[in-house]
């Protein structure tokens, strides 16, 4: 036996227990907790089932045209507004980190103003822009009435997108700052200019940090679209409201939309998870060895 420490004499008898079987810890508490929680959930489900809620109505409206078209509008707006928000977020994140004071302070102002005012107000402002600018365009060349351009869709898109951009800018900035300085110096050293570096090295690596919060923001955005109902954008919650104004089934219609929201959000969460995994992988699984601090020891 080459791997027995040569200084160990024949181990005393008591060391023989070294060959006993290791037994993992028992978790009686867990089973108790599990039962209690399942009981509580069962009670809540029962209360809902027996409460003043007509479940057949929920089923009936689950696929009603009004609800489905609202759902589609919600998804469409989420995609468009998020795309605009991401674009603005990246642009303003770069601006705020620029050494050019003009660019920097424009970005500071943008973030301050749009994070600081309620979205509802921004939507109303865009929607009623004609109160201030009756026409848009280049005078003489091309002009159109502001209200014709600023449809509910456009006003919602601008409102949500620009507002989102202000939040995303901070997230992107955090992501850029998280990129290791060494990576940046390595990029400089092979002669990259600032923009190439951003595109090829910094942003791809920042993705890992950016995706989780942006995923959160997308999920919020799905639900935030409902604010747009005030300017007549027909998203799902608004259509559900239209229905319950007519038939008075308030809770039922809210539950219908809640289920749809949960479906959409669940799909998005799965997408987010896959994306996170993708970026973790293409960065060479840096964190494989990582054990979460609380997992390591057990509760």
């Amino acid at each position: 036996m080459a791997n027995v420490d040569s200084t160990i004499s024949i181990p005393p008898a008591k060391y023989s227990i070294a060959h006993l079987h290791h037994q993992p810890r028992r978790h009686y508490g867990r089973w108790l907790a599990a039962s209690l929680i399942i009981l509580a959930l069962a009670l809540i489900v029962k209360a809902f089932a027996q409460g003043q809620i007509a479940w057949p109505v929920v089923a009936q409206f689950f696929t009603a045209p009004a609800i489905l078209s609202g759902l589609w509008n919600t998804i469409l707006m989420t995609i468009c507004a998020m795309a605009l928000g991401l674009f603005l977020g990246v642009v303003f994140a770069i601006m705020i980190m620029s050494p050019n004071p003009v660019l920097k302070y424009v970005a500071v102002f943008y973030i301050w103003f749009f994070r600081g005012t309620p979205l509802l107000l921004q939507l109303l402002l865009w929607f009623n822009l004609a109160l201030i600018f009756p026409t848009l365009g280049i005078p003489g060349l091309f002009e159109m009435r502001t209200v014709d351009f600023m449809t509910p869709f456009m006003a919602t898109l601008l409102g949500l997108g620009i507002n989102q951009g202000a939040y995303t800018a901070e997230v992107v900035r955090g992501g850029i700052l998280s990129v290791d300085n060494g990576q940046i110096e390595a990029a400089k050293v092979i002669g990259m200019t600032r923009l190439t570096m951003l595109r090829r090295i910094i942003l791809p690596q920042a993705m890992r940090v950016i995706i989780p919060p942006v995923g959160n923001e997308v999920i919020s955005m799905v639900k935030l679209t409902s604010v747009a109902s005030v300017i007549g954008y027909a998203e799902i919650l608004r259509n559900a409201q239209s229905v319950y104004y007519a038939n008075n089934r308030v809770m039922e219609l809210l539950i219908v939309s809640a289920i749809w929201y949960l479906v959409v959000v669940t799909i998005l969460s799965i997408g987010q998870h896959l994306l996170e995994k993708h970026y973790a992988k293409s960065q060479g699984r840096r964190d494989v060895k990582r054990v979460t601090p609380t997992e390591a020891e057990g509760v």
Partner: protein
Amino acid sequence: PARIKDAGKIVIATMPNYPPITYKDPATNELQGFDIDLGEAIGKELGVKVEWQEIAFAQMLPSLQTGRVDLAMAGMSDKKARQETADFVDYMKSGAQFYTSKAMAAEIKTVDDLCGKSVGASRSTDWPAQITAWSEKNCVAKGKPAINVTGTEGSADARTQIKSQRLQAAAQGNETLPYNQKLEPDTYVTIGDAFSQSLAGIPVLKSEPQLRDAVKVALEKLQTNGTYDALLDKYGLKANKLSPITVNMGE
């Protein structure tokens, strides 16, 4: 007016949260209601197509100002403050009506029983103010406790709060209450008669007297040819008939 003739269409704002005046058919998601039918009829009289735009109630007057819409039909009350921005062609009477749920009807039999209770009404209307005034006159003045007035987000919310017994009673326009009683039979009980009167009108921007007059003429025609009455009938609104058509008579 030429502008509207040229466009061949008239844009009317509405908010389908006010059955049976304006709402959406849950089954088909189509606009429906007294105002919708009346609006279509006015369009026909004017010889133009009607284009409906759904806009939140509070955004209707700003939308008139920006030229986004030409008219608004959503049972809007004709009130002095609103007349600053627009002229109102009044086409309907409405009165606020107290009601409560079957469950509490035993407790609240007459309007006098409302004193000291919680009573709600939609906060975007002036009913909360009217209830307060009513309570000053009929409760406080008679030495009874005042009504606890709650502004709810809309009439639908007031009804939900009655069900959860957060409110003991609520007030709602007598043009909409019958509809809700039909929808949920055996749920609501009215208390007394309407306690206030107001006029509902179609707002037209002050800068467009031509359009205002055209709408007025169209409405008068619809009254003489019986269409107006037929529509009132269709939606069970006989009690809300306003004749003759007036302008800016609300206060």
